[in-house]
């Protein structure tokens, strides 16, 4: 069964290696799990899962593998023992104690055991069965005044139940990203060069020079390594991008806050790029695309963000631009090609899910730019493409 669990984890795309598995077996043989599923849950997680973004997948896999193992005898015993332990009632208020005294503890215990036998499923918000949030006398977070709180803080919940709660869902990687995560990804965009003031001791040069001086020490300094990366961000602010505004804003602020770039420039466009780009999101101030291409060196890393989803004529026709008072002499696709030809590395990030990428215009844009999803994984892959050394 344990080996099944291993494959369930692999099936959920958690990168578990055999070495880690053997480590877990070693820990188990040392008796670390105390034959308890809860201890096993945390033990296996700490040894097999090395990234919080996989915690949710782990929860799902755990649930899948150990679903059948519910309310093990050990836990039932624990509860019954708890019922007999008067000192745990100390923190009850006098009112609660008075209420409790109205109950026959023995009868309550019997009822409890009986309900436990009857119960087969996880149970929420009912008025009879054991579970959470209900008004039955037993359970957690309930409202029954004479009720018995089955579990204390955390510790005693069953492992499968903890797994079911999926606390780590927000840490999944295939979800779209928050600013901090984007910053981490953007950090990989670096190109270290020796720049600026000469502050670091160049040991080899110092020794060499000292020898040449016949032993008279001469210290040689060199500038420290700094990031030389230059980034150009082009964002689609068109109507179809409205649902993704927060996402694009997030990417923008991540790039903007990243102080380690040597230069960072950003412009907006509307659906497709034509002879003009806009310097603000409301598209009042504009710059000529051609002059921008002249100004910026080919070594800028270009990130285009847009859904690339438009009417085909917007992309391929002259005068196809969506704004009727804007007549473009050159088709959008040609402008895209010019950008691609000018800069050595460009990527296109698309917030649309990948299964929609077979649409005509998206397909055409993909032939010009390598396209990646605007998720953490997509951004990661895209950045890898950007920093790849171009011939």
């Amino acid at each position: 069964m344990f080996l099944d669990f291993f494959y369930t984890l692999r099936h959920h795309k958690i990168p578990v290696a055999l070495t880690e598995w053997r480590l877990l077996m070693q820990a188990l043989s040392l008796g670390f799990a105390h034959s308890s599923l809860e201890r096993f849950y945390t033990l296996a997680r700490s040894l097999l899962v090395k990234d919080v973004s996989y915690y949710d997948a782990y929860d799902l896999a755990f649930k899948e593998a150990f679903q059948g193992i519910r309310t093990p005898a050990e836990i039932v015993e624990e509860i019954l023992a708890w019922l007999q332990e008067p000192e745990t009632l100390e923190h009850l208020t006098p009112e609660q104690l008075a209420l409790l005294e109205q109950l026959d503890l023995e009868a309550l215990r019997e009822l409890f055991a009986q309900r436990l036998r009857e119960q087969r499923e996880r149970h929420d918000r009912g008025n009879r069965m054991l579970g959470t949030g209900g008004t039955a006398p037993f359970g957690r977070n309930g409202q029954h005044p004479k009720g018995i709180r089955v579990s204390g803080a955390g510790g005693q919940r069953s492992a499968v139940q903890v797994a079911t709660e999926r606390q780590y869902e927000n840490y999944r990687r295939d979800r779209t990203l928050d600013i901090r995560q984007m910053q981490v990804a953007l950090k990989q965009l670096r190109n270290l060069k020796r720049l600026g003031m000469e502050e670091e001791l160049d040991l080899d040069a110092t020794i060499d020079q000292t020898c040449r001086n016949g032993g008279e020490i001469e210290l040689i300094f060199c500038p420290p390594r700094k990031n030389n990366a230059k980034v150009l961000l082009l964002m689609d602010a068109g109507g179809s991008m409205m649902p993704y505004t927060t996402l694009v804003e997030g990417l923008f602020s991540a790039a903007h806050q990243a102080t380690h770039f040597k230069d960072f420039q950003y412009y907006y466009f509307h659906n497709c790029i034509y002879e003009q780009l806009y310097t603000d999101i409301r598209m009042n101030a504009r710059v000529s695309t051609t002059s921008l291409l002249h100004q910026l060196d080919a070594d800028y890393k270009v990130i285009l963000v847009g859904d690339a989803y438009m009417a085909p004529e917007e992309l391929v026709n002259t005068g196809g631009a969506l704004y009727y008072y804007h007549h473009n002499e050159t088709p959008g696709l040609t402008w895209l090609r010019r950008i691609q030809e000018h800069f050595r590395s460009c990527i296109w990030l698309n917030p649309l899910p990948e299964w929609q990428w077979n649409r005509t215009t998206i397909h055409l844009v993909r032939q010009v730019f390598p396209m990646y999803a605007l998720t953490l994984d997509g951004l990661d892959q895209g950045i890898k493409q950007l920093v790849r050394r171009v011939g």
Partner: protein
Amino acid sequence: MQASSFEQFTGTEQYIVSPALRDAVNVAIALQRPLLVKGEPGTGKTLLAHNIARALSKPLLVWHIKSTTKARDGLYIYDTVQRLNDARFGDGDVSDIQRYIRFGSLGQAFTAPTQVVLLIDEIDKADIEFPNDLLNELDEMNFHILETDEHVVAQRRPIVIITSNAEKELPDAFLRRCVFHYIAFPERDLMAEIVHVHHPRLATDLLEQALERFYALRQVDALRKKPSTSELIDWLQALVVGGVSAEQLAATLPFLGVLLKKESDVDVMLKKGVNLTYARA
């Protein structure tokens, strides 16, 4: 279900651990693997190592990682410039290279006569390749000094605690060798316990109200930096010193600057109409 002999660490009076973290620490000690701890800032990642050292009465060595730190710095430094200088001015015995080898934190941990706790703090700050450069040393617990052709082997394998703010991805090969724990943000009950350690005489109603406001504040998505445990503890101190009562706290949020460290975040709360003033009781 009795406590076994390898249940070494159970937290200290000043430091409350969740059962999962306690297990992770003990597994790491028993399996002699480094423990990698991640989590939000202010959840006590660094304090963990200090408290393990205190609980097990072992000396603590701290290696603070900076962006310029290289793996070899932790092992030893060969002070060429000093030697060059001595050679020039005839100070000391230049032929004894040993004199110019200084051990870094990792080197000190290896050569210490007793087992030590070694904290490698904020490993993610270093270069991306940094953890890989340490793989062998952490695995084998020995290293070679090129200059003196000496081999340093750990007397007792140190208990290694590594913290990371997850700014950079750590390499897989490195992760495979670690025991990993993510310190989740404490839930209310655990938080009340943690606060109790720092402010044992805090009035219950004030604590309840403060926690209420604190967790509500953490729910505000517009905040760029959410307040963490350390900020809560400072804030409670401010509330006690300022003589704020639980009733006042229900209506106002005094000393918000202790909780929110970014001006834009304070602005967000002001726009939401939060009242910062209170009348001293």
